[in-house]
């Protein structure tokens, strides 16, 4: 088992593995996306209360879940990096940050667009919306901290610490709907018993969640590859790759130790 784990310490191995896996993830994402959008936008019936405007749920809810999922991945891999000094973990964390920030932004914007016809307002300062906004600040703070140091090694460790510290925001967002009396709809899926959403509406939602997950992992694979290249720019395997890419006559990439800008 440890041999399998140790392989992830080898940057060339991860580079090749991510490159092999990325097309499959992207393909799966495309299929799930098409199926989910078809079932959600065309096949699923209109809501008895909201009519057709509820269909934005198929983008809003998966984006919101992903915003929290990605932050958890970021925090866990930051913890792995701090504890076991696994370089790949830090690359995963820094690659995930902009993706997570994008998901958070999409969740906020689509939620706002949904809120206007249904609640009558673009924004309301309740527990869940406020916590999601703060999550966006956490992502931005992480990316800002990474870029603030001249020494890349210091930047990595400081940002990793920040990611681990901010993990307390995630349970606050999840439970905020129970803790504060808000306009927001209470959780419909995470209960163990029958979800209170009809199966014809639930199926496309789960498909869209799967699509967004695959989207994240496909993006992550590509970003991890480029992150590894940048991090290991001075090493021999990168030099070989660069030589091969330029037809065997090029020079090794002159490693610029600029911090990874996510």
């Amino acid at each position, binding site marked *: 088992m440890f041999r399998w784990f140790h392989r992830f310490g080898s940057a060339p191995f991860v580079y090749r593995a991510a490159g092999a896996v990325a097309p499959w993830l992207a393909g799966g994402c495309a299929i799930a996306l098409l199926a989910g959008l078809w079932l959600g936008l065309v096949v699923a019936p209109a809501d008895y209360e909201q009519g057709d405007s509820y269909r934005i749920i198929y983008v809003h809810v998966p984006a919101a879940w992903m915003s929290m999922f990605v932050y958890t991945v970021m925090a866990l891999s930051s913890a792995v990096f701090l504890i076991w000094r696994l370089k790949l973990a830090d690359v995963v964390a820094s690659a995930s940050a902009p993706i997570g920030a994008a998901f958070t932004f999409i969740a906020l914007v689509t939620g706002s667009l949904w809120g206007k016809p249904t609640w009558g307002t673009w924004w309301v300062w309740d527990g869940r919306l*406020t916590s999601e906004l703060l999550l966006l*600040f*956490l992502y931005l703070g992480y990316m800002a*901290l990474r870029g603030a140091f001249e*020494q890349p090694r210091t930047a990595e460790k*400081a940002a990793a610490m920040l990611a681990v510290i901010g993990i307390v925001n995630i349970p606050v967002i999840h439970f905020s709907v129970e803790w504060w009396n808000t306009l927001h709809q209470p959780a419909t899926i995470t209960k163990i018993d029958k979800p209170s959403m009809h199966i014809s509406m639930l199926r496309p939602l789960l498909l869209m969640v799967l699509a967004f997950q695959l989207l994240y992992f496909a993006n992550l694979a590509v970003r991890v590859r480029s992150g590894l290249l940048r991090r290991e720019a001075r090493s021999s395997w990168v030099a070989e790759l660069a030589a091969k890419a330029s037809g065997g006559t090029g020079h090794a990439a002159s490693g610029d130790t600029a911090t990874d800008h996510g």
Partner: protein
Amino acid sequence: MSGDFPRVVARDLRVSVRSAGQWLNPLVFFVIVVTLFPLGIGPAPAMLARIAPGVLWISALLAMLLSFERLFANDHRDGTLEQWVLADAPLSLVVLGKVTAHWILSGLPLVLLSPLLGVLLQLPFEALPTLIVSLTLGTLTLALIGAIGAALTVGVNHGSVLLSLLVLPLTVPVLIFGSSAVTAAAEGFAAGAQLSLMAAMLAAALALAPWTTAASLRVTVASDG
């Protein structure tokens, strides 16, 4: 070992008291911001009384945010901080000492002045004790949380803006419950629930922040990379 904590507190107090800007700035800022609100929004007493808890709490939070950068800046500039990180004394204890001294000079004056400012903002008399208690608990918690941000941004150019951004999400629960406690007291309700939660947040910060700050200092100061 047991004399380290008082020694750190005493040293920091002595150093900070000598430069008046260290401790006077947050206090003056607090007063100025509180004064600006009636000037900007209008002096109608009923409205002022309604927004007084929030105004007082936000001003206190901003004043504390302003002061965090000063926590480690001086020591970092002359190399003392590096010596602290390398020294025998447990770094979390040193951090706790510095945070205590920082609170005595930056947080305690705010707490002591807040009843006066509360009266200026037409805050009902019965809310003043709750104001003092909530601000005491809150500024202590904020000082501990701010230390983490200060440790992460020590030595960064223009670090105070980044510090505020980093520290803000963690300070929001303190602000929400603190202001809610004072609002409840102003309306005649009991604020026990909010104050208990604030005490819990302080306990959590006391347990976790010094250790986290020490770990962050070891990352940003000791340049082993």
